[in-house]
């Protein structure tokens, strides 16, 4: 459960160190509940710049810091970020850069990112019509002819477009100079869409001196675009992948670059400046010119999002596809790009017990060599040094020297927040006695999305490890994140705390239900039978009883009613749970009642239940449970009863039968506890057959696994 992002998760781009995450989809992605993440999982992103983050997240956080204002949320936009410290890329992007719903009338059949010159046809038609209609110098009859011809073009980029004859006809009929310019433009556009780039270039060149501003500017832009499309003829292989290395004629690339650069120079705020800059990046990408591509992106960093036509998230996304897979540290001197590369090179292996697929981390000397490039941003460089000390050389004391205390702030930039969080992590690592106070001080400034929950997590882990769990749940506790609170309740809380939480009328309903469910489950399975009978009264009448019990915290209403069922289970003629527990309260070793308790667990789907699991030691909820008694395991229960000479024959037969079936039919144990080898399963099976041949269970059992 704890690392359940499914197959191919990190594979989307099949690049080891920058793969995009799975976004918040239909199925949960379970983060590791801790502050330090060195491996890319896609589930563990935080608003702390760190190696385990998706590169898009680290890049976006740095880009957001360049903007002086925080994103403005308009009423009716997406809901604010959920109270959680962890996110996948998709929900992160939606939180910071909410997008309106697609209009209903959108008939575009081209996907985002699909590179076809024909995809601009609809917008091109609209712009052409608007420009023609605005040009009153052109007689209205000519305007109507032009518009009709443009509408008739309908290119599809697989063959010649439909409107060639009509355009040739219009070209001959134009009398006004303006009409002629628009008609010439149309001829160029038709040639462009049809892939006749020589004709297109000739027509657009001829418009350089046109009087009409729209055809003149648009033709200038189109000249560059023609060359980009000419470059694409030989840019892709049979698989639709970019050819590497590029085989495109260098002269075409040079013409495309010059054409687009000239346009951007002459029209810095033109109709197509944003698009021309995008095409320029495409030229660099097509030709495999990583250095120029990196420089172009670095230049975009300085522009406000409106001028680049991309918000920070979209920019990070594009760079993740187009630049980061190729980018080496030697290709750039931009501190933002370097920081993203450096952090990704501090990553650890995906699975801690293996080094499968793991590259050596960046050396401190290589990092130090970048120092001059961070002259404008020493705080970022110091942070990278500190991250290196934390994740690579594991020297927390060095971090405290690199990152001075600045925990008291009205708000944090993402870099400032990262610096202080890392300082706090180092304080914890050196067991500084002021660590808790440090986290508390950080709370006030943790204002940006996901920041607050990260600090709450730090504080909760501190208190959990310091034996001060109750403090998390005190009135006025600053820890509000339900994931943090409820995780502690299901993992480490003892019976008194659970009971208090279940009874606290001021607590959130879900938390109360989680506490009560955990209490009743652990009462029944950890031997607190009398408590169970008393605590059962806390369950409200009509509480739901049909949960799937996969993830207690994800259920809208934890199904506490399951413990109040009045029906028994017929298979072994068991009474209701209440009666079973009542018998155990009188005699904890009552063998049939024990088997009936196990049957209750089996039939209600509690095998491998999360309340019997153990979170990793370094995560929230990873300390030993304060609830007395061991985790429940049917296998251990059956083993004990098989070994106990006092177990009556029929009960022993059933215990043997159930123990054998723990491994059926897959051969995997579904009953928890300590695994036994096949030979032991075979021995149980034979003993069932030999000692209890007349029992229903011996006769029913034909295999062991």
């Amino acid at each position, binding site marked *: 459960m704890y690392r*359940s*992002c*499914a*197959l*191919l*998760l*990190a*594979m*989307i*781009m*099949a*690049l*080891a160190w920058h*793969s995009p995450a*799975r*976004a*918040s*989809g*239909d*199925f949960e992605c379970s983060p590791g509940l801790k502050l330090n993440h060195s491996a890319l999982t896609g589930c563990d992103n935080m608003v702390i710049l760190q190696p385990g983050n998706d590169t898009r997240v680290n890049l976006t956080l740095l880009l957001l810091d360049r903007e002086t204002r925080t994103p403005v949320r308009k009423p009716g936009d997406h809901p604010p970020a959920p109270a959680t410290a962890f996110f*996948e890329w*998709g929900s992160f992007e*939606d939180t910071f850069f*909410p*997008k309106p719903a*697609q209009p209903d009338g*959108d*008939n*575009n*059949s*081209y*996907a*985002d*990112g*699909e*590179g076809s010159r024909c995809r601009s046809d609809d917008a091109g038609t609209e712009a052409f019509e608007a420009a023609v209609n605005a040009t009153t110098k052109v007689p209205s009859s000519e305007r109507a002819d032009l518009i009709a011809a443009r509408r008739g073009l309908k290119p599809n980029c*697989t063959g010649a477009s439909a409107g060639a004859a009509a355009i040739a006809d219009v070209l001959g009929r134009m009398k006004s100079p303006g009409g002629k310019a628009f008609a010439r433009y149309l001829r160029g556009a038709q040639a462009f869409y049809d892939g006749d780039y020589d004709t297109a270039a000739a027509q657009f060149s001829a418009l350089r001196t046109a009087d009409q501003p729209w055809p003149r500017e648009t033709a200038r832009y189109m000249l560059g675009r023609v060359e980009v499309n000419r470059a*694409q003829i030989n*840019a*892709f*292989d*049979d*698989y*639709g*992948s*970019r050819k*590497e290395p590029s085989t495109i004629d260098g002269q075409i690339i040079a013409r495309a670059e010059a054409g687009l650069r000239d346009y951007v120079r002459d029209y810095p705020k033109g109709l197509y400046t944003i698009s021309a800059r995008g095409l320029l990046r495409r030229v660099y990408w097509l030709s495999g010119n990583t250095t120029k591509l990196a420089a172009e992106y670095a230049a975009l960093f300085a522009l406000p999002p409106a001028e680049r036509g991309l918000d920070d998230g979209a920019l990070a996304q594009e760079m993740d*596809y187009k630049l980061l*897979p190729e980018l080496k540290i030697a290709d750039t001197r931009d501190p933002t790009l370097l920081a993203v590369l450096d952090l990704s090179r501090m990553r650890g292996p*995906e*699975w801690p017990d*293996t080094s*499968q*697929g793991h*590259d050596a981390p960046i050396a401190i000397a290589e990092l130090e060599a970048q120092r001059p490039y961070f002259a404008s941003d020493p705080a970022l460089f110091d942070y990278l040094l500190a991250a290196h000390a934390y994740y690579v050389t594991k020297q927390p004391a060095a971090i405290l020297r690199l990152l001075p205390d600045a925990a008291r702030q009205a708000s944090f930039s993402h870099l400032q927040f990262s610096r202080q969080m890392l300082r706090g992590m180092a304080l914890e690592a050196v067991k500084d006695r002021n660590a808790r106070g440090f986290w508390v001080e950080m709370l006030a400034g943790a204002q940006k999305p996901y920041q607050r929950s990260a600090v709450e997590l730090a504080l909760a882990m501190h208190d959990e490890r310091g034996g001060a769990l109750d403090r998390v749940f005190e009135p006025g506790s600053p820890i509000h994140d339900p994931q943090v609170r409820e995780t502690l309740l299901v993992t480490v809380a003892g019976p008194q705390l659970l009971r208090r939480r279940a009874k606290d009328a001021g607590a959130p309903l879900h938390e109360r239900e989680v506490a009560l469910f955990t209490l009743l489950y652990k009462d029944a399975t950890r031997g607190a039978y009398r408590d169970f009978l008393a605590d059962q009264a806390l369950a409200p009448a009509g509480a739901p009883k049909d949960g*799937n019990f*996969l993830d207690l915290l994800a259920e809208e209403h934890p199904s506490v009613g399951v413990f109040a069922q009045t029906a028994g289970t017929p298979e072994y003629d068991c009474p209701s749970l209440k009666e079973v527990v009542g018998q155990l309260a009188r005699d904890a070793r009552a063998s049939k009642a024990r088997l009936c308790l196990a049957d209750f667990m089996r039939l209600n789907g509690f095998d491998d239940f999360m309340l019997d699991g153990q979170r990793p030691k370094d995560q929230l909820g990873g300390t030993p449970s304060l609830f007395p008694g061991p985790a429940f395991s049917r296998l251990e229960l059956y083993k004990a009863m098989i070994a106990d000479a006092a177990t009556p024959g029929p009960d022993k037969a059933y215990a043997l039968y159930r123990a054998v079936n723990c491994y059926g039919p*897959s*051969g*995997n144990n579904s009953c928890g506890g300590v695994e036994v080898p096949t030979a032991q399963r075979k021995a149980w099976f034979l003993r069932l057959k030999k000692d209890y041949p007349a029992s229903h269970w011996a006769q029913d059992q034909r295999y062991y696994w």
Partner: protein
Amino acid sequence: MIRGLAIAVLLALAAPGGLAPEDPVAENRVDAGHYDAFWLWAGVKPQPVLARATRIYLLQGQVEAHDPVRYVAQRPAIPHLPGTDIWMVVRVETLRWPPPVYRQILAQLARWRSAGNRVVGIQIDFDARTRHLEDYAAFLKDLRRHLPADRELGITGLLDWSSNGDPRGLDALASVVDEVVLQIYQGRHVIPGYAGYLARLERMKIPFRIGLLQGGDWRAPAGLAANPHFRGYVVFLQNPRPG
């Protein structure tokens, strides 16, 4: 179905006692040169081994779980592979597809076909959890209705479907898809203990292939070749590691 000779040889080698004595370790590494079906993901550079492929699964795009859900192309251009069976792969983060996503994916399929490709069908790559297979099957049934009748529908599958998958869910999938490719790797890593899962493939009632990772570990379990639903392998190509 008759597969390449190399695969039959590999299976024989993997049988008990059949390992080549001179280099037993190397036999466990997936050498793409011994296979004829491949995935080509975005960002993975084509390799010469593709020239001898009889079928290629090409990632075309990704349905992203944004709000609104959107389809993002991942392959820069339309392929031109008239001599090879092609599956157009769609990576899927969410099953909540709005109408434009269907429209864009079907338009892509049509463009791939009109470029002269032998597009067998669409493969959906979605990380359906074992206990949600019935929901997934319902989605696929609906998708199937959108597809041209002469195109097939395939899916990737998770290894643990064979042992933990809900049998009803697996049956529901079997009635909807033409094939499933079960991946024995996660990310760039072969799943430790994959053999334990594979041992229980008898539960699969769908024609299936095994998805291997280029350079990853692989040892065919006994009985795989005899499984009536087994159709062969697909190798996930990887870029060579730097250095």
